[in-house]
């Protein structure tokens, strides 16, 4: 996915409003209308279930965030070799990396998740060796499959981004590093990787927001994240809109916090000009 598309699909730091722009006359009126709407929602809809479920909701948000960060970090660690292999690798590295990216990016995440959970999950118990291994207690749970599917998906999308980022580092910088007598590894560690990450950072932010938007899928394989908690609320209280509106609000807040954090992080990296 290109930069432009990630921006179009995920909320990114460029979209954050500035403090000053809030106080235009028409915006104040619109905010008043919105506040009235919020008050109506709070008064006329049923929220009496909220206190009962609050602890579970908090736990669910935590599970969602753990899912997000663990898979984003693991996925990124996988994405660096995948991107690098596509840029410099010999064909027997290049080809599998390319095929991996194409296949994962060409199929829906929900399908991959179900393939891992139902497919592999039904295959594993047939092998006594796996049943007796130390991994078995984990393989009987749902979350390892969720983590695996989300990690693979993030690695594929991010691998493509890192490929572009590695290829985009100016050749002169690498030649300069070589002229300084750096070994290949030092050059990679000091110049190539940091410059590539810097170039990929805006897209990386977008991809992380997209990853947050993918996490509720794990609820379909019985991982109890915030989405699953809300589904439970809907089943038990027979309410349709209230829990879903709250869920949308929770995700908007999470996205907002994530994006603000990214902007702070991005601003701390010194750049030329600006």
């Amino acid at each position, binding site marked *: 996915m290109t930069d*432009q598309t990630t921006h179009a699909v995920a909320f990114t730091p460029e979209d954050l409003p500035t403090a000053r722009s809030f106080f235009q006359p028409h915006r104040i009126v619109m905010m008043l209308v919105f506040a009235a709407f919020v008050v109506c929602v709070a008064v006329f809809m049923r929220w009496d279930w909220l206190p009962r479920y609050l602890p579970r909701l908090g736990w669910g948000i935590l599970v969602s965030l753990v899912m997000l960060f663990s898979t984003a970090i693991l996925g990124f660690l996988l994405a660096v070799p995948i991107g690098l292999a596509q840029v410099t690798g010999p064909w027997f590295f290049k080809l599998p990396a390319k095929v991996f990216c194409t296949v994962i990016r060409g199929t829906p995440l929900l399908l991959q998740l179900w393939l891992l959970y139902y497919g592999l999950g039904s295959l594993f118990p047939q092998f006594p060796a796996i049943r007796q291994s130390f991994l078995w207690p984990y393989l009987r749970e749902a979350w390892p499959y969720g983590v695996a599917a989300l990690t693979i998906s993030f690695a594929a999308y991010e691998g493509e981004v890192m490929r572009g980022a590695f290829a985009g580092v100016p050749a002169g910088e690498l030649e300069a590093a070589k002229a300084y007598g750096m070994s290949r590894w030092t050059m990679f560690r000091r110049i190539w990787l940091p410059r590539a990450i810097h170039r990929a950072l805006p897209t990386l932010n977008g991809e992380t927001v997209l990853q947050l938007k993918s996490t509720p899928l794990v609820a379909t394989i019985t991982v109890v994240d915030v989405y699953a908690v809300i589904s439970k609320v809907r089943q038990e209280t027979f309410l349709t809109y209230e829990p879903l509106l709250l869920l949308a609000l929770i995700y908007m807040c999470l996205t907002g916090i994530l994006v603000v954090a990214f902007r702070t992080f991005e601003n701390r990296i010194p750049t030329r000009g600006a």
Partner: protein
Amino acid sequence: MASDSIVNWSLLALSAPGWGGVLLQGFVNSIQIAIGGFALGLTLGVGGAFGKLYGGPILRDLLECYTTVVRAVPELVLILLLYYAGTDLLNQLLALFSIGPVDISGLMAGIFVIGVVQGAYSTEVLRGAIKAVPAGQIEAARAYGMSPLKVLRRITLPAMLPYAIPGLSNLWLIATKDTALLAVVGFSELTLVTRQAAGTTKAYLLFFLAAGALYLALTLVSNIFIGMLERHARRGFAEQR
């Protein structure tokens, strides 16, 4: 089950005992929703992009809210909200005109839901593409006395196309994959049908891999057409890279 060979291919047979026909029907449903949703999203996107660029301050802020919400909330949640809210609102509207409630077909609901989500994405893509058109071209068209609609039809839309096609083609691929999310609201598209087939026959890997191959084939075929379209739209541009 598959005792004589490792893979029981007869499960994929097109006629009744096999599930191949059901799978293909689900695939057709998925493609229909993707096409419908993408087209609806494109329509919303053209309107949204022009509203954001040339609209008044209130329209612009409302559109900003729309795109922000869609880009910040998971598609799965939006699909559930729109699915219930959309059908509810329609039935209440019909009740207002004292027409009894109608059963909204899953296909229509699916297209509506995917379309609204895609609308926000394509608003952003098209807005970026329109901004990339040199301002002088649009000013020249205005100076010739063209009406806004004529400027849109003759200048802005054709001139922005090369800039928009990479983004829009990605959105098409996203649309095809987002149809899988409709499985969660119980619409029988490819992913849900696959799960039903797999659950019935217990051949999970076979069916999920088959469905994956279908999705992948759709993506690869789309990529070929996208490449052709892109070359066509970029003719006359200086070769990049």
